[in-house]
């Protein structure tokens, strides 16, 4: 009779000890390379474990206080090792390969994630992250919530398309307005536009320069611009100044111009996207604006 | 001895040298005179192997010039070009020392020869200075010392070719240079020197080759070559020729 509480205590102790042991196996010091990945880690509550991030990890702002390990394609082996990490997480955009090999040789885990612009990639990444953080239930919830938000958005977009044709849109990525690259098929930008219900007027693959004339010929209904150097209003001014041919387009005449944070286009799909997609969709379908607000 | 026979040289459709015969004998200074474009530098080019003749052959000590190996030839034949384009700040004695490259005479002997050559070219006071800091005339004398060092002491079997070695020199040094060349010849070297100053040629040369449009107008002693008739025909100038009051060689006075 007296053995049951003891067994219970032993069972509880065992359970606690095993979770502790499990926690001890989980990497405690993280270096993250890839903006979206760092955001997911933060979303899953792992920010306290980050000891270093790359230059593309700028959200949330508190990450900028962490030591920088450089651009994700040009990491420094010794630099990362000096932070004594247990794990290096990044997408396949991470490099250079010899450095990753050196880091592995030093006994640090290197976990690769997908940067593809697909929902399945997000699911996979979240599951993997959840395992590494010991936060599987939160990860599953986040993934489900993400998918749900995107499905809801799809439904709203379809609804809006009943009353209005999909607008022709171009996504321009520039640097202080000059030489903007147009997001073509297969890019993260393209995925964004399509999710928000737009018709991407650019038919080419990847990001390419266009001549001003070609830009004018496409005559988009809406222009989404993303600038690596300037923000919002300044970016718009610079864009219009450097590309006067745009002024003739319908988008500019009707003032249908949207600014987009460039970090959203790098490192895979991140947690801030649903909100951005909603505001994009609202701009694309002004008549149905109300339904996108949340 | 350097010898050329039946030399023809063409550049494009121009005949630059026509049927030249010349033999440089030891101990003699041959001066080459002629107006611009007469072919003086081309002749020197052929004699030193820079230019290949279209017809005729150049022989050094009986062997065709082209058959000589580089260093072997360099021990017997030295050339002083008209201009130098050295753009690095070597010291004067280093420049002269390069003349000793074809020889394996060792550092001590080389240093002695360099000093002797510099003195002969009246450039010993320039030693220790940077080549780039010298004037045009001083540089010319350093290069003269270099070619003298290359053939030092100028014995039989060595040949010295000089392309206008006095062009940038003041009157004193024009004479000291040619005197050094003369002394070289006196020791047995064969010398050919292109000059444009008729009186210098008259004083220092044993024979003169007068070129006109690539052809040999005359090849003989200064007395025989430097006549008013010849000079009028080749240069188009009216001259008086008198004997130098102290030395006796022809003195050309333009009327």
């Amino acid at each position, binding site marked *: 009779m007296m053995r049951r509480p003891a067994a219970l205590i032993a069972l509880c102790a065992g359970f606690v000890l095993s979770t502790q042991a499990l926690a001890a196996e989980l990497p405690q010091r993280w270096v993250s390379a890839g903006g979206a990945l760092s955001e997911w880690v933060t979303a899953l509550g792992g920010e306290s474990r980050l000891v270093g991030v790359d230059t593309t990890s700028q959200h949330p702002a508190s990450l900028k206080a962490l030591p920088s390990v*450089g651009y994700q394609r040009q990491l*420094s082996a010794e630099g990362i090792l*000096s932070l004594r990490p247990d794990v290096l997480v990044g997408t396949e955009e991470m490099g250079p390969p010899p450095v990753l090999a050196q880091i592995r040789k030093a*006994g640090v885990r290197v976990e690769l994630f997908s940067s593809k612009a697909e929902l399945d990639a997000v699911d996979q990444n979240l599951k993997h992250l959840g395992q590494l953080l010991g936060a599987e239930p939160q990860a599953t919830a986040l993934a489900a919530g993400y998918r749900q938000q995107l499905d809801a958005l799809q439904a709203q977009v379809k609804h809006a398309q009943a009353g209005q044709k999909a607008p022709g849109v171009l996504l321009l990525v520039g640097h202080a307005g000059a030489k903007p690259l147009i997001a073509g098929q297969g890019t993260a930008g393209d995925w964004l536009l399509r999710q928000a219900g737009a018709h991407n007027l650019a038919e080419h693959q990847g990001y*390419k320069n266009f001549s001003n004339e070609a830009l004018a010929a496409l005559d988009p209904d809406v222009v989404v611009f993303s600038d690596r150097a300037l923000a919002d209003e300044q970016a718009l001014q610079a864009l219009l100044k450097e590309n006067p041919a745009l002024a003739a387009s319908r988008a500019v005449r009707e003032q249908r111009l949207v600014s987009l944070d460039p970090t959203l286009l790098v490192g895979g799909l991140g947690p801030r996207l649903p909100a951005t997609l909603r505001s994009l969709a609202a701009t694309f379908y002004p008549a149905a604006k109300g339904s996108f607000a949340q | 001895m350097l010898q050329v026979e039946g030399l023809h040289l063409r550049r494009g459709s121009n005949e630059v040298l026509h049927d030249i015969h010349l033999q440089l004998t030891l101990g003699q200074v041959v001066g080459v005179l002629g107006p611009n474009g007469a072919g003086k530098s081309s002749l020197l080019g052929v004699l030193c192997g820079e230019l290949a003749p279209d017809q005729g052959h150049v022989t050094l000590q009986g062997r065709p010039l082209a058959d000589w190996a580089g260093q072997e030839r*360099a021990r017997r034949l*030295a*050339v002083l070009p008209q201009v130098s384009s050295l753009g*690095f700040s*070597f010291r004067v004695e280093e420049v002269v020392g390069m003349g000793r490259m074809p020889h394996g005479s060792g550092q001590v002997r080389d240093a002695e020869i360099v000093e002797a050559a510099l003195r002969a070219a009246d450039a010993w006071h320039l030693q220790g200075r940077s080549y780039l800091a010298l004037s045009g005339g001083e540089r010319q004398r350093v290069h003269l010392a270099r070619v003298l060092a290359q053939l030092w002491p100028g014995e039989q079997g060595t040949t010295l070719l000089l392309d206008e070695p006095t062009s940038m020199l003041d009157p004193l040094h024009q004479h000291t240079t040619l005197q050094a060349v003369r002394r070289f010849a006196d020791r047995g070297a064969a010398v050919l020197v292109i000059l444009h100053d008729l009186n210098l040629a008259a004083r220092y040369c044993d024979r003169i080759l007068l070129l006109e449009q690539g052809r040999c107008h005359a090849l003989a002693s200064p007395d025989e070559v430097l006549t008013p008739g010849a000079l009028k025909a080749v240069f188009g100038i009216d001259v008086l020729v008198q004997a130098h009051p102290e030395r006796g060689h022809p003195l050309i006075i333009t009327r």
Partner: protein
Amino acid sequence: MRQRVQPRTLIICLSLLCLLAVWLSLALGPVSLPLFDTLRAGLRLLGLPIAGDGLQQAEMILGQIRLPRTLLGLAVGAVLALSGVAMQGLFRNPLADPGLVGVAAGAAMGAAVAIVGGSWFGGMPEVLAPYLLSLCAFIGGLGVTALVYRLGRRDGQTNVATMLLAGVAMTALGGAAVGLFSYLADDATLRTLTFWNLGSLNGASYERLWPLLMVATGVALWLPRRARALNALLLGESEARHLGIEVERLKRELVFCTALGVGAAVAAAGLIGFIGLVVPHLVRLLAGPDHRVVLPASLLAGGVLMLFADLAARLLLAPAELPIGIVTAFIGAPFFLFLLIRGRS
């Protein structure tokens, strides 16, 4: 005339400086290792029987990261400096740079082909990628130099001025080709291309090092043997010929030494500029233009400069890293301008 540093003094000082640079390069880095640990790990790597507990990290950092990097820096610096001397001798101009003959442009083209072509074929196996890049850069550099050399040859003689102009044209063509490849590349490969253009000793490994070490040793052993001939070449081509030097053969050797050296260095570490210009110039300023001093001194000084530049690249922004080409450009470009201004006065 300004006093010259004695050759022996210069070589000794440079050797000591070289040892210091190697020491600092091995001892300093973003990972702060206690000096004692570095020493012990170093001795263990040399094969001495010393207790190795607690030294794993030091051994790993030293042996896998810092040592190959130091060796790479020494080799690249030495080869680039020697190539600079060779080019300056060939063009008889102290401002000549190996890039003038188009080697760098050719190497850049080769690398662009490898980087962009690789992405077209759906990416290469990761292990193969660095070797393919190196090989393509090497072939590109050698190919362009050979072409430029042929263009400059006429009647069995090499016209240096023509070579120079052909080199300039090749550099322009190379730049256009790289631009075209950049245009055709997707964002990812474009970034890789850009970073390669800036040069870096990052990720140095022993596998990448061997070809460069072989070339560097070859060039370092060969050029000093031609020191006197190079001196004579500075007088002028015909003057050198009249001193008994086989000028055409010497020019050929200089061109190929440079192409091999620069091609190998660029293939191993990307485009790193100005070493070939700055180092020989400094050496000449100190000890005069005699190649018997300039060649060995430039070899040492090139290595030293490279290692110090790499220290700056590694430590200034730790734990991130500056591409070393930026550091050398910041040193070299103002120096070059200073030389030009001084030359005018």
